[in-house]
């Protein structure tokens, strides 16, 4: 059996060969603990970790000392939000985020609410975007943190981070952005974009799983966090635990490759998406793009195929690996919370599929995938009582459905 074509780059990415090559020595010959100060094994590991910090910092225009390694974005999000809550909770008990955030942010916000914080959940517009004006209106005297994602993992919409950051800076509120989908995919500059904290994850940028980091600004303003993990006081006391040296080396190498190839990767992913969507739209009616067509993550295409249901569609994509909604929630039968908060009707939300194209996707993959999608949608529409009614000119909203 050959593998299906992988079109789920927002869920995870394969490790780039250049990244793997950089990592391998650190499993065997150079296996030292980066915290061992008394011998060469430790020094070599620490040197590798320092290089990784430089590579990450260079990609996002930070300084190496501002990088705190974690096990991934979820941990970094928990550290940023709870760490700020614990450190600045006496100053204020209000935070701002949005309904379109990843579960890691939403569930952390819920946790903080239980601890007595008040959280404002901004409602994004129909494209999934939150504006700087919305943030400005929501900031109060007691607001201590704004937490908004850079690019949405389901629909790829890119938030106006620079403007939002400027509002937060002006009002003296810390700004944290979950940039898991953005780093390595679009230009990120923590100085120009007014970021105080930012998280990223290795496996979304062609690096390994199980490693990520939190950028924590050291100057203007200096951000202080209460550690959420007690132990040896690693990472300037913010995150204890022996460093995952091979993973960290991989994350650094992945960032270096991403910095070097950024323009090429963007052009490639955008060209593939254009090729895919133009084929789909040429062959099928009643297809809608979810997300902001003017500010969308390269290579991310979330489409609603009206009158066919998503799960049955995925069954029809026998040779494609795609996702309906985010991978974290696709096991449930609930429509995506992101599409819901954008005001996409449940009916269309049930018909939505996320396609993700990346570094290893080829034009042949796209042509094959588009054909399979078109074939499956046509077949299921033959089977769809809704499509039949629409063809007969019946307005579906006038029917008294027997919901269950």
């Amino acid at each position, binding site marked *: 059996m050959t593998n299906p074509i992988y079109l789920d780059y927002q869920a995870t990415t394969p490790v780039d060969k250049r990244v793997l090559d950089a990592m391998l020595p650190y499993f065997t010959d150079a296996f030292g603990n980066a915290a061992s100060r008394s011998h060469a094994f430790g020094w070599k590991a620490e040197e590798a970790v320092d290089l990784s910090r430089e590579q990450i910092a260079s990609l996002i225009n930070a300084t190496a000392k501002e990088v705190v390694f974690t096990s991934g974005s979820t941990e970094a999000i928990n550290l940023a939000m709870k760490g700020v809550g614990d450190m600045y909770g006496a100053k204020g008990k209000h935070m701002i985020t949005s309904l379109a955030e990843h579960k890691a942010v939403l569930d952390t916000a819920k946790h903080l609410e239980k601890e007595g914080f008040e959280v404002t959940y901004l409602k994004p517009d129909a494209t999934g975007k939150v504006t700087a004006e919305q943030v400005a209106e929501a900031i109060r005297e007691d607001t201590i943190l704004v937490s908004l994602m850079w690019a949405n993992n389901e629909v790829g919409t890119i938030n106006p981070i620079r403007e939002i950051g400027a509002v937060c800076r002006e009002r003296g509120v810390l700004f944290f952005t979950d940039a898991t989908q953005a780093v390595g995919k679009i230009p990120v500059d923590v100085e120009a974009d007014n970021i105080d904290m930012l998280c990223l994850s290795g496996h979304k940028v062609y690096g390994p799983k199980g490693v990520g980091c939190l950028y924590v600004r050291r100057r203007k303003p200096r951000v202080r966090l209460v550690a959420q993990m007690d132990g040896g006081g690693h990472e300037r006391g913010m995150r204890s635990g022996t460093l995952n040296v091979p993973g960290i080396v991989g994350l650094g190498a992945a960032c270096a490759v991403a910095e070097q190839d950024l323009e090429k990767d963007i052009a490639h992913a955008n060209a593939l998406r254009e090729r895919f969507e133009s084929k789909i739209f040429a062959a099928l009616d009643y297809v809608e793009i979810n997300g902001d067509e003017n500010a969308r993550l390269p290579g991310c295409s979330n489409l609603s195929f009206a009158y066919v249901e998503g*799960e*049955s569609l995925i069954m029809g994509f026998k040779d494609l690996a795609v996702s309906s909604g985010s991978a974290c929630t696709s*096991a449930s039968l609930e*429509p995506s919370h992101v599409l819901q908060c954008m005001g996409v009707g449940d009916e269309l939300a049930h018909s939505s599929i996320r396609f993700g194209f990346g570094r290893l996707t080829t034009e042949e993959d796209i042509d094959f995938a588009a054909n399979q999608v078109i074939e499956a949608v046509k077949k299921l529409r033959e089977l*769809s*009582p809704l499509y039949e009614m629409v063809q007969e000119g019946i307005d579906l909203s006038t029917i008294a459905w*027997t919901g269950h």
Partner: protein
Amino acid sequence: MAYSDKVLDHYENPRNVGSLDKNSDTVGTGIVGAPECGDVMKLQIQVEGDTIVDAKFKTFGCGSAIASSSLATEWIKGKKVDEAMAISNTEIVEELSLPPVKIHCSVLAEDAIKAAITDYKQKQGEESEAAAEAQNA
């Protein structure tokens, strides 16, 4: 999610897809479910005497919903109306080995059969009423 071979077979080769003339007196139409719930089934029967001589379906829904309605049409074809009325969703669950999260698909298929039969009976009732009225006049 892993589907049973029977669900896959019905998905790949759905039986009795299509539509019957919904305005015909001998055709009963059942439409159940709702688009916002992710499932809508349309099941139609054609009746001669007290026997279902033809059945057709169209379904918007997951693979299990498509399989449940496809199986339902297969089962009711050739059955007496009363026999079809007695088909229960648990038989569909068993035949297709549906997992717990997909049981609602079988319930919907049972509802669709019943709705189609009810529609047919209503049409017949109205017809005999009309005939009775014509006689009385």
